[in-house]
């Protein structure tokens, strides 16, 4: 419980910092903090394989890609935080806060509803209540791999096609226009 609150507050703090920092490099650094605390939360939930995956793929690969692009663009200081229009700033915050309140309300409602339901059903059936807590044991990488390559083999193959398309698309989009012409003229 203490570990959950420590990691959760770290994640929320990091997320707010990602949004509010002016420099994109600082945002990226705080995003790494969020990724690492989420990996800790995955480990708490028993998904140790995903925790490792999260650190390797997100904190490792994707964030390095982000930092690489930030440094490649070599932004000037005045290009860091563009002053957003005041209306947009406050409207954005209000909109996000409204969505948050709405979702929290829905979750709270569902929680209340559910607790009432289980109470009534237990008293009616008089069956021994099922252990409602989370599983104590963690899921091994072996089980995840068996599911990924067994039940989900077809989506897995489709994902590889998606990655191929993304690689080709990234190369084609980011290629400098007329590189071939310059090389020919030189």
């Amino acid at each position, binding site marked *: 419980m203490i570990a959950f609150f420590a990691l959760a507050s770290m*994640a*929320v703090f990091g997320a707010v910092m990602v949004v509010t920092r002016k420099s994109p490099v600082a945002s990226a650094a705080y995003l790494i903090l969020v*990724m690492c605390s989420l990996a800790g939360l995955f480990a708490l939930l028993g998904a140790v394989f995903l925790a490792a995956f999260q650190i390797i*793929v997100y904190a490792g690969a994707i964030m390095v890609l982000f930092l690489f692009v930030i440094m490649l663009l070599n932004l000037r200081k005045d290009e860091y935080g563009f002053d957003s229009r005041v209306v*947009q700033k406050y409207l954005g915050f209000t909109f996000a806060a409204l969505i948050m309140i709405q979702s929290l309300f829905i979750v709270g409602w569902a929680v209340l509803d559910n607790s009432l339901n289980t109470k009534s059903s237990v008293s009616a059936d008089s069956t021994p209540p*099922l252990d409602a807590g989370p599983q104590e044991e963690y*899921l091994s990488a072996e089980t995840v791999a068996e*599911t990924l390559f067994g039940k*989900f083999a077809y989506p897995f193959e489709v994902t590889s096609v*998606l990655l191929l398309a993304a690689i080709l698309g990234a190369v084609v989009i980011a290629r400098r226009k007329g590189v071939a012409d310059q090389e020919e003229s030189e």
Partner: protein
Amino acid sequence: MTAPLEYYIILSIMLFCIGIWGVLKSRNAIVIFMAIELMLNAVNLSLVAFASHIKRILSDLIQRMPAERIAELIESSTASGQVYVILVMTVAAAEAAVGLAIIISIHRMKDSVNVDDVNIMKW
């Protein structure tokens, strides 16, 4: 003692909404991309939380099942939830690669990453 499912869902909602705030507020295309990554991560967290608490979610179904099938069902459901997360991560990686390529291309063309400057798709 681990935290109950509701706490994870509330944390996931908070992270998602901070992501929405970031997308709406910032003008820097790279920061907008980071906020989108944040939203994808929030959804991943809720997927993993639901997958790990599958016993409680399916409690009504489980009560009418033979005992030996329960463990199998729970394990396969949890693994399925985690495989979804792996697929989401893959899609996020592909999206980040293409999106950052687009940002580089725009920066080369406009010499700016301010999304207000990018209006070539407007009629």
